């Protein structure tokens, strides 16, 4: 099967889907959307035919169309993960934790991603200081959680399981790209360690702005 992905290289939300497809071994075909400068995702045609919210990513899996990066991760992991189901675990407590961090991923998009759109793509209508403040508040919650969980259990991913889940993938890119929005990660040592750990997962390909780990 080949999943069609409406895609843009600088979108962290699109990266989440590209990376998930790779880790699940599912082929995909990117349909490039002129996000900038063309704002194609806000065109009448895109709103009418692909996503009325005017956002990326959108997938079309042989006729099954889904928008929203986090929703797409849930779908892909549910459908294509192997029997271990490590990406979207079935255990109720773990699944509840995943949902909690997927909601955090939305908050990260609202703040850190928006700050990056302001600084890099000229979205000057956004309240940049509110975005940065919001991002720092969200990052502190993440840093506290990662530091405390690691000290208590030795676990290093967001959910209390030994392997990363879609919760980590959903929260990762706009944390890793925070500097492009003027948000420093200096004050979040546990978050910086989590970013390093995630980048060094086997098969991590990164995106423009997030280096994959090179050969040692």
């Amino acid at each position, binding site marked *: 099967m080949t999943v069609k992905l409406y895609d843009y290289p600088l979108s962290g939300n699109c990266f989440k889907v590209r990376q998930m497809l790779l880790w699940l071994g599912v082929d995909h075909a990117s349909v490039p959307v002129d996000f900038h400068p063309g704002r194609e995702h806000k065109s009448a045609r895109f709103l009418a035919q692909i996503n009325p919210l005017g956002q990326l990513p959108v997938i079309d899996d042989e006729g099954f169309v889904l928008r929203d990066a986090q929703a797409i991760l849930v779908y892909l992991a549910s459908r294509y993960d192997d029997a271990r189901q490590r990406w979207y675990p079935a255990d109720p407590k773990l699944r509840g934790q995943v949902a909690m961090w997927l909601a955090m991923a939305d908050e990260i998009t609202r703040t850190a991603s928006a700050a990056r759109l302001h600084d890099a793509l000229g979205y000057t209508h956004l309240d940049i200081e509110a975005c940065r403040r919001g991002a720092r508040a969200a990052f502190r919650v993440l*840093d*506290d959680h990662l*530091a*405390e969980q690691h*000290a*208590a*259990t*030795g676990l290093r991913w967001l959910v209390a399981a030994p392997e990363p889940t879609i919760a980590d993938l959903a929260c990762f890119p706009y944390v890793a790209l925070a500097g492009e929005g003027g948000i420093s990660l*200096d*004050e*979040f*040592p*546990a978050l*910086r*360690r989590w970013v*390093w750990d995630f980048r060094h997962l086997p098969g991590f390909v990164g995106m423009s702005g997030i*280096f994959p*780990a*090179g050969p*040692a």
Partner: protein
Amino acid sequence: MNPSAASQAWHPVAPSAEVRAGANIVAGFAQGQELALWRAADGSPQAWENRCPHRSVRFTLGQVTGGDRLACAYHGWQYEAGSGACVRIPAHPAMPAPRNVCAKTFATADAAGMLWVRLAADGADAPSELGDTVPAGWHLARTLTLRVAASEVRAALAPHGFASTGTPDAWQGALGESPIAALLLDAQPQLSFLHLWTDAAPGSDAMARVHRAARQLRSDIEAAASH
């Protein structure tokens, strides 16, 4: 020079276990100096000015390669552990690396579970009292970061029940009813790190109480500083 003044110049930049041999590069900070912290494959700790001498790109974007070299992310220039000397320039593979190109290195020491860095280039050895700053067998509860100057943290620790020890910026007290050894790092003008060690066992209720009390301490200190 008496032992206390000597150890004041050694900064606890990171827990030793956070910087893994031949693996990661961790950003470190001490009195506004940016550092790239890493270990060669043999475990020897490296603390370098976080800046490649070629075009000043931060070393923390790069990676450890070949076990004992740090490669810059920009042009792949490689620098060897210990001396910090540039040993390879990939744009000219056959050329011997220029003698005068060197990362700026700082003295390091592992003691009491922490990686310490000295900014002064005076060749001084790490004083033995660094090893006494954390009791043997204790666990790292966490590194707390506070958005305030180190002076604000120092002023707040005594009212919160912490006593200074013989070693500057090594404090003893309690959080959540567990005894605590707190090591303060003056990272940046408005950023301090407080490494909190405790005898509470990992995963215990006591450790969870330490964590909650640590967050409360942070919010008290930051709120006081903002007035």
